[in-house]
C-alpha cells in the first residue's frame, strides 16, 4: 500500500481530515526547505507537497511564481531536489508528493524520471498541465513503478470527464477550488462547495478528495472540512511565511501556523 493511501486510511479511523502542505523546494535555499519540512512535520501536517520549480508555471499565481524564480536563480537542479527528498526520508516517513510541470518529466522520459523520484522517496506526482487526454504514457509509467498519479479537477469539470480523471487517479484527487491560479485570496464560493459535493459523489469513497488553490486561513480549512473535503491543501500561505522569515526561524513559524490549521481538521 502506498504511503499516501495508508495515511488516508489512518486518518479515516481517527475521523480526521488530511492537512496537505505545499512548499517550494530550494526556496529560498535548501536549508530553509529542510527547516520548513521539519516545521510542517512538527505542526502535524499529514502529507507534504514539494514543488520543483519550472521556468513557466502557468497554473501558479504571483507567490509561487516568485518562489519558482527565486529557487531557480539560487541554482536548484533536479539533482538537488532528489537530494533534499533523500534527506527528508532519513528523518521521516511522511508521504511526499512532487508538484511540478510536465516538461520536467518529459525531458528525461516519464519512466526514467518517475523511477528516479520513487528511488529518492517520492510517493505521488501532481502535474497541473497534464491533461487526461495526454496522460496515457505517464500513467502507465507511474503504475509500473508504483507511483501515485494525483490529477486535478476543476469546478467546471463535467461529469463524464470527472469519471475518466478519477479512473486514472491514485493517492487522492486534487480539486481546484477556484477559477484561477494558485494563491488567489478569495471568499469561499457556492460553486466550489457544490463542485466539492459532486466530486465526492463521483469519487464514491474510493479515492479521497483534497481541495486546494486559495486555501490559506484557519477559517478556510474549517469551512472545507465541514463541507466534506478529505484533505485541505495549503500552499501559497506557507510560501509567504517563508518569504518573511529568516531561515533560523522558519521551522518554528511554520510549525506554529501548521498546528493552528491542523487543529481545524480534527
Amino acid at each position, binding site marked *: 500500500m502506498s504511503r499516501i493511501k495508508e495515511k488516508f486510511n489512518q486518518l479515516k479511523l481517527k475521523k480526521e481530515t488530511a492537512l496537505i502542505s505545499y512548499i517550494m523546494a530550494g526556496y529560498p535555499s535548501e536549508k530553509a526547505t529542510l527547516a520548513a519540512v521539519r516545521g510542517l512535520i512538527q505542526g502535524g501536517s499529514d502529507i507534504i507537497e514539494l514543488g520543483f*520549480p519550472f521556468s513557466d508555471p502557468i497554473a501558479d499565481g504571483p507567490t509561487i511564481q516568485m518562489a519558482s524564480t527565486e529557487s531557480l536563480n539560487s541554482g536548484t537542479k533536479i539533482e538537488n531536489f532528489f537530494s533534499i527528498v533523500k534527506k527528508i526520508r532519513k528523518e521521516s516517513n511522511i508521504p511526499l508528493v512532487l508538484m511540478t510541470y510536465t516538461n520536467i518529466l518529459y525531458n528525461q522520459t516519464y519512466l526514467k524520471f518517475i523511477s528516479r523520484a520513487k528511488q529518492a522517496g517520492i510517493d505521488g506526482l501532481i502535474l497541473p498541465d497534464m491533461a487526461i487526454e495526454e496522460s496515457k504514457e505517464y500513467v502507465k509509467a507511474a503504475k509500473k513503478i508504483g507511483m501515485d498519479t494525483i490529477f486535478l479537477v476543476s469546478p467546471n469539470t463535467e461529469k463524464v470527464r470527472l469519471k475518466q480523471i478519477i479512473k486514472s487517479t491514485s493517492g487522492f484527487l486534487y480539486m481546484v477550488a477556484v477559477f484561477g491560479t494558485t494563491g488567489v485570496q478569495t471568499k469561499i464560493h457556492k460553486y466550489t462547495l457544490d463542485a466539492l459535493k459532486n466530486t465526492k459523489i463521483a469519487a464514491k469513497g474510493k479515492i479521497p478528495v483534497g481541495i486546494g488553490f486559495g486555501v490559506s486561513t484557519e477559517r478556510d480549512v474549517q469551512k472545507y472540512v465541514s463541507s466534506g473535503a478529505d484533505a485541505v491543501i495549503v500552499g501559497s500561505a506557507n510560501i509567504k511565511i517563508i518569504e518573511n522569515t529568516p531561515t533560523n526561524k522558519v521551522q518554528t513559524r511554520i510549525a506554529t501556523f501548521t498546528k493552528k490549521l491542523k487543529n481545524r481538521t480534527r
Partner: protein
Amino acid sequence: MKIGIPKDGRFGEFGGKYIPETLAPAIEELEKNYLKIRNDKNFKKELGRLLIDYAGRPTPIYFARNLTKTIGGAKIYLKREDLLHGGAHKINNTLGQALLAKRMGKKRIIAETGAGQHGVATAMACASLGLKAEIYMGYVDTLRQKQNVYRMELLGAKVHAVKSGSKTLKDAINEAMRDWITNVETTYYLLGSAVGPHPYPLMVRDFQAVIGVEIKKQMKKIPNAVIACVGGGSNAIGTFYPLIDTNARIIGIEAGGKGVKTKLHSAPLSAGKKGVLHGMMTYLMQDKDGQISETHSISAGLDYPGVGPEHAYLKDENRVEYKAVTDDEVIDAFLILTRTEGIIPALESAHAIAHAIKISKKMKKTESIVVTLSGRGDKDIDIVKEYLAKNVKNKRKI
C-alpha cells in the same frame, strides 16, 4: 503528409493539449465551435468580405527585379503581406478568430504579443467588431516596440506589460493563459501564432493558409522554392500548407541570433529538443532539467523558445527544411531590400529575405523563389538604427 484536421490534436507525435483542467471545457467548446464554422458558408463569406474590404486582400505578388538583378540568381518574388491593414499578416488570423469569438458570444478578448503586430491586429479586429481587447506583452518588448504599444492603446486595447520570467513573448503567453484560467467563462483567448493547445495550431494555420492559396493562384507555375520566417510559425505555416503536396522546395527560417552554436538564438527546430510548453508537445529550447531557456533575437516577433507543432512534424517528415540566419545577416538583408526595392521589411521577414539571398545565388536564373514578406519594418527602424551605430562594419552600406 498533408494533415487536414489533426487526429487527437496531433501532427504526427506533436501537438496535443497539455492544459490545466480549468481550461479543458473552454478548449472543448472552442474546438466544437471552430469545427462547426470551419465549413460554414456564411462564416466564410463574412470573413472573406472582411479580408477583402477591411484587411486589403488579396495581397500582390511582386517580382523583386532589382533585388534579383543585384543578387544575380533565381527570380525572387515577394508575397506582400506587409501591405495588409496593420502592416502584417496577423490580421488574417485575428479577423477569423474575433468573428468566431463573437459567434460564441464572448465579448472580452485577450491576446499575447511579441513585436506587437499581433496585438495591433487584435486591437483592430476587436475595434471593428465591437469587442473589448486586453493585450499581454513582455516588458522588454514594450520597450523595444514602443510604437506598437501606443497603437494598441489608441485602438482602444488595454496593454499589460508582463514582468515575469524573461519578460518577452513566452511570458506574455504565460500571463495570457493565467488570465484565461481565471476568467475562462467570459473570455476568449485569441492566440496569434500557430502554437498552443489544439485547436489553436489548426485554427491559426487555416486562417493564414490564404497566403499560400493566393501564392498558388498568382504564380504562373509552382515556384521552385518558397521561404518564410518561423517564430511560432504562423505566416510560415500559412505559406507552406497549401504547397505541401507540390514539388516546391519549402524552407522555414528561424532566428539564429548570434549563431545557433551560441546560446543566444531562438531556433528550436535547428537546435532544440522535444518537450511540452504552452499546451503543446514540440521542439523547445531547454536545459538539461527541462527548464525553458532564455532566447535571443534581434526581432521581438521571433524571440520564442518553441515552435508550432505542425512545423515540428514537417521537419521530422523531412518535407520542410528549417534553417537559421544570424542577426548580422538579417540586418544585411534588411538594408539590401530597402535600398534595391524601396521596401522596408519587418526584421522578422528580413530573416526569410536573408536566406533567399543566400540560395538564389546557387539557383538558375530561370528558377523562382517566393518569399513571404510577412510584415513591414516601420516598427523596427529604431532597432536597426541602434544596431548600425554599434556595428561599424555594416555602416558602410548606408
